[in-house]
């Protein structure tokens, strides 16, 4: 009787083990890998940055680029992600938000900072470093992310996109960025940060999807680390093009002060 029971248990265990191995194999196979064994994040990734609400509609020989959404309803625009500030800084955020058009550096073509810039539009991956390329409304930007274990640089000053280093946690690329200047906002609503801002981004690939998540740490002003809503970019065959230069020409002609939504 014991022999039968043991045999039955063995069959169950083997079945479970085989299933687990199959799942593991499937998971492993679904991740394309580079020569170094890490997931291959190379590619051009469309994340919809700023154009998800643009749904061109062909009408005969004519084309409607904006204003045709009623005919092709798309997903509603998401509620903006917002960091939570300590009480003493709420009035500063509110004031900056009220004067967004005059204060938001991104509206004057300055680089938007991290994580406001969002997922990279293109990734170039080599064993010792990963390069992020961006086509942003403020211009073309790049970030170099060493992945060879080196520390943050000490020979450069604060900058709009900071100084990044990366490492792998399993199949997830973790990028830590510090050394930001104070001339970027976290969002478009006056969400300033201090020079001690630290941002951790996590990127992983699943088939043709790039999963992106970021957390901003700025304990001097935020009540808690700000976790952005996860985003997904899709591999695209349409090659990235350099962003046209950003030359602001509107400010002198604007006559009211309503908020300019710039949700990314």
């Amino acid at each position: 009787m014991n022999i039968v029971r043991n045999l039955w248990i063995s069959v169950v265990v083997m079945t479970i083990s085989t299933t687990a191995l199959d799942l593991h194999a499937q998971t492993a196979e679904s991740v394309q890998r580079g020569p170094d064994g890490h997931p291959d994040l190379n590619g051009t990734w469309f994340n919809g940055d700023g154009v998800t609400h643009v749904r061109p509609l062909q009408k005969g020989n004519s084309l409607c680029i904006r204003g045709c959404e009623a005919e092709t309803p798309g997903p509603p625009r998401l509620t903006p992600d917002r960091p939570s500030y300590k009480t003493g800084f709420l009035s500063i955020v509110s004031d900056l938000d009220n004067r967004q058009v005059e204060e938001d550096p991104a509206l004057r073509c300055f680089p938007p900072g991290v994580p406001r810039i969002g997922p990279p539009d293109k990734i170039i991956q080599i064993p010792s470093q990963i390069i992020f390329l961006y086509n942003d409304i403020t211009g073309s930007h790049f970030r170099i992310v060493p992945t060879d274990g080196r520390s943050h640089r000490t020979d450069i000053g604060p900058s709009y996109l900071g100084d990044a280093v990366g490492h792998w946690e399993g199949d997830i690329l973790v990028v830590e960025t510090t050394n930001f200047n104070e001339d970027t906002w976290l969002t478009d609503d006056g969400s300033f940060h201090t020079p001690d801002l630290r941002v951790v981004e996590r990127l992983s690939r699943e088939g043709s999807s790039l999963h992106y998540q970021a957390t901003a740490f700025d304990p001097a002003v935020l009540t808690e680390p700000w976790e952005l809503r996860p985003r997904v970019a899709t591999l695209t065959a349409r090659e990235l093009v350099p962003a046209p230069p950003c030359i602001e020409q509107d400010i002198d002609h604007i006559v009211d002060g309503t908020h300019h939504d710039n949700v990314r």
Partner: protein
Amino acid sequence: MLHVQMRLRLCAWISAVFLTATSSVCAHHSVLGQFDPEDRVMLSGVISKIDWINPHIYVHVDVENESGETTTWRLESVPPAYLYKAEVTQGMLMGGGNPVRIEALRARDETQYLGFIIRIYYPEGHHYQLSIDY
């Protein structure tokens, strides 16, 4: 806190400079903050140049008035990324140098020859609607 104070001082400085330079500093960056949907114009002319720039492209249109004088309008439109998504190129908008008609909104601050494009009509019969029809 020191950095915040420094930032606020910088903001105050920027505000002071811009308030001196223009009264529109506390203003809006959106279309309706700059252009008047109640003040429309239909322009007939030739697109002479397009500034393919962020955050918005500008289309230059040479318009001849009844006296035979040519004035060049500067017409703001959408960001280049919108057109890239729609696969509309600079050349397609130019219309090959042929006369076009452009429906536009005039600037609220009454700057002459400044507007915002709603639609461009081409002699071949097609048109591009570039903006929401406010």
